[in-house]
């Protein structure tokens, strides 16, 4: 086979980044197989029957029924040794980061991580805190790749059909030494703005404390967190840990969605690292528009309720 895509189980369904990884694989080669490991592997494999793949390999050994780095890396190595793919690939998730380097060392092939696009001579990844992009290439014809979220779109998945295959991995307590418990969530209120992918940010354009709930509702509809500019925090409309800007946090989310934020310099300095900025403000001269990728000139109080409605449908 050309490419082995290692899939991730996201609490019962196929992880979005795994779907995107399959799209990436379909760009790179023809003979593509997928690998699913652990508890629920069969259910995930079932979800793939409409995809254009050669086969889906499942591994259900009890020592990998829940994720652990020892077991997963050992399984991938054994599958790779048996099928000899040129490329092993996955979505760049916390899980991939945890075990894929083990595979790289076991097989002595390079792992090029967090790729944003494929170039003529190699693969592009961000360096120096995304200030620059770098083109990486492997010196061997075998390699491991992981793709960054949204490098590819699952809309472009080629459909087709594929078969299922079971692989018997050889695992014992000598090569699986770690024990992991079940993942769990912590209580709400542990808001981490730093790691939020999307931030909905509230500025003075929200006009009144009574309107702040709109930001929270929009955030909920998008699975986002709420942040705010300093004047809003100073007025007591929002908790101070949500403050973004020169004396609050510096954030670099995938999307910074600002509502009625003017873009004063002290605030802007805290959001410069955002990958995408959508700004809604009724003042066409608001400084935030110089930074924004999408400048929505309009009334926040009119747009947001309708946007929330549209997103919830």
């Amino acid at each position: 086979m050309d490419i082995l895509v290692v899939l991730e189980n996201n609490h019962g369904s196929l992880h979005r980044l795994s779907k995107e990884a399959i799209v990436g694989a379909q760009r790179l080669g023809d003979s593509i197989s997928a690998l699913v490991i652990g508890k629920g592997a069969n259910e995930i494999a079932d979800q793939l029957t409409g995809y254009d793949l050669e086969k889906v390999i499942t591994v259900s050994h009890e020592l990998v029924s829940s994720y652990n780095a020892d077991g997963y890396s050992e399984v991938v190595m054994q599958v790779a040794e048996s099928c000899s793919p040129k490329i092993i690939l996955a979505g760049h998730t916390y899980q991939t980061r945890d075990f894929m380097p083990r595979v790289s060392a076991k097989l002595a092939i390079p792992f090029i991580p967090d790729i944003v696009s494929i170039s003529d001579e190699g693969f592009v990844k961000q360096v120096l805190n995304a200030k620059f992009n770098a083109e990486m290439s492997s010196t061997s014809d075998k390699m491991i790749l992981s793709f960054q979220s949204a490098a590819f779109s699952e809309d472009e998945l080629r459909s087709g059909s594929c078969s299922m295959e079971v692989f018997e991995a050889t695992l014992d307590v000598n090569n699986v030494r770690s024990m992991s418990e079940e993942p769990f969530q912590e209580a709400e209120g542990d808001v981490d703005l730093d790691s939020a992918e999307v931030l909905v940010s509230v500025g003075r354009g929200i006009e009144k404390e009574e309107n702040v709930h709109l930001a929270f509702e929009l955030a909920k509809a998008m699975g986002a967190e709420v942040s705010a500019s300093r004047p809003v925090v100073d007025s007591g409309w929002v908790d101070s840990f949500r403050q973004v800007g020169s004396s609050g946090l510096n954030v670099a989310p995938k999307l910074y969605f600002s509502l009625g934020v003017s873009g004063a310099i002290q605030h802007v300095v805290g959001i410069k690292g955002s990958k995408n900025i959508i700004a809604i403000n009724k003042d066409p001269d608001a400084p935030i528009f110089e930074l924004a990728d999408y400048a929505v000139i309009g009334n926040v109080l009119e747009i947001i309720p309708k946007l929330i409605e549209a997103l919830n449908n």
Partner: protein
Amino acid sequence: MDSISFSFFEKFILAGLTLVALASFTYEVYQRLVIVLKGTGSLPFDRFPERLSRVFREVILHEKVIRERPWPGIMHALVFWGFLVFGIITLDHFSIGFYKSILSESAHKKYSYIVIPFSILVIFGILSLTYRRFITKPKALGKTSPSSGVVAFFIVALMATYLIGEMNISRFLWKVNWWIHSIIILAFLFLIPRSKHLHLVLGPFNIFFKPFDQPEHTPVNIDLEGDEDELDAMLTDLTKLTQNQALDIFSCVECGRCTDVCPANRGGGILDPKHHFILDMREPLLENKDVAVLDQINVEAGWECTTCQACTEVCPVGNHVEKSDEIRRLEVLVEGRVPQEYQKLFTNLQETGNTEGASSSELADSLPVFTPEKEYVLWLGCFARHGLDPNFNRSVKNFTKILDVAGVSYGVLDQEHCSGDPANRLGDKLTYTMLREHNMEQLTDTKKVVTLCPHCAVNLGKEYEKYGTVSYTVEHHTQVVGRLMEEGKIKVQMGENGKVTYHDPCNLSRILDIEDEPRTAIRSTSSNFQELEESGRNTLCCGAGGALWWKKETQGRTHLVRAEQVIESGADTVVTGCNFCYGMMKQGLGPLTPEGREEVLVKDVADIVAENLI
């Protein structure tokens, strides 16, 4: 009543009690003085006449006590002046007990025409103060103080027994009254050193010894190439109070004026200078009988201080209250416990010589370079140089415009590093040493420095001088503007500025004692000038001092308290003389402006003068 005589037995008792009271009093005072003398440094006797005059004004005339809290101040003055007047009476009282009266009968009678009215004033005063303390209960006075109640009772009783003694009563009653008066005085002697009433004794001395310069903190000399044992000794010494500081702690009268004016406290912080900077160390001092107690200062409170010196300015017994320098340098140099945002600040200063970690400055590049034949080094400071508020660049340009019009030559130093104020005020004396040594080298051929930043002015001048000779003079730009106006080198006209007010930067008015020049400049350009509530040396810090500009404000409204006052004053424009105040006003006024009102304009002195140049 000199026909009254005392039996030998009575004299014996009197002598015994007096001796015990005096001995106890002396011992307690002596004990505290021994501790004070264990402090580092020495008590200052320089500028003797000025110190004496200060004691006269603040103790005899009660200037500060009355100015800060007029009504209680006057009431206290009455009690105090009564106390002075009663000096002779008390001596006479005991003299009668042992031998006979020292005043002749006619002298006694004449003097009583003064003393009797005073004793009534004293009763009025003390009752008024008692009402305030126990019924009105202002927050600044803190918990109910039993010793105050006792003292109030004593004073009233003393006045009452004096008055009774002047009346025509039976021998027996007179003697009983006499004994009551005596016992109360001896009990008073017993109480004084063990309570805040020790200020009766120590106050005048403490005011005498008060430093002229504030802030006054022992310089920390660090030589990284030096002897390790010396460094060890220096670090251990960092926990020790100076003699003056120890004296302060015993002189504290617990009035709470310091906490009342503290901007951090008023902004909702936990900092309470009365306790955190003074009283928390009193018990440890007495228990350990030693002065190594600076590590008792509450660390969290210590980080909240803006180093504005309002507490020191307002203390009626001459305490140098502020001790953020002491606790911060312990945390930084000895413990390595530094809040994260300040670690970044220190690293930036060490790596790039400025607070922002920048490698170049657009503003500096746009200004002429200093060469030795130019009159002034224009010292920019990190705020202007690295655009902490880019709007302020306009103010710098306005100042250079004024200099150009006046024909004054100036230039900026290419290798200007941060004056070190943030490192200095945050306790990182090591980074401060690096910056200071670098800057001193850059300034070797300089005669005159002018800067728009009072923090830079304070460090380049006063602070650097604590470590070595400084061969240049430092002026704040408002001083230069004032002088140029006086010399006629620039002329201004009245402008349409609406209602204008001025916010005194704490570093400028309190630390550098500059309040007049900015006002002269403003008044010559604006006809409608109005003072803010707390102005001049009593200004309320904008909240950026003590390097708090760089603190992650996750709680507290220190930075908004002054902005609120500006809005309440109804001014259209607030002028200020410091880039940090400028930045703080710009940040604070917006969100606090009520709906329908125009936002207050913020200008620097340089702006309002340049705008109205003829």
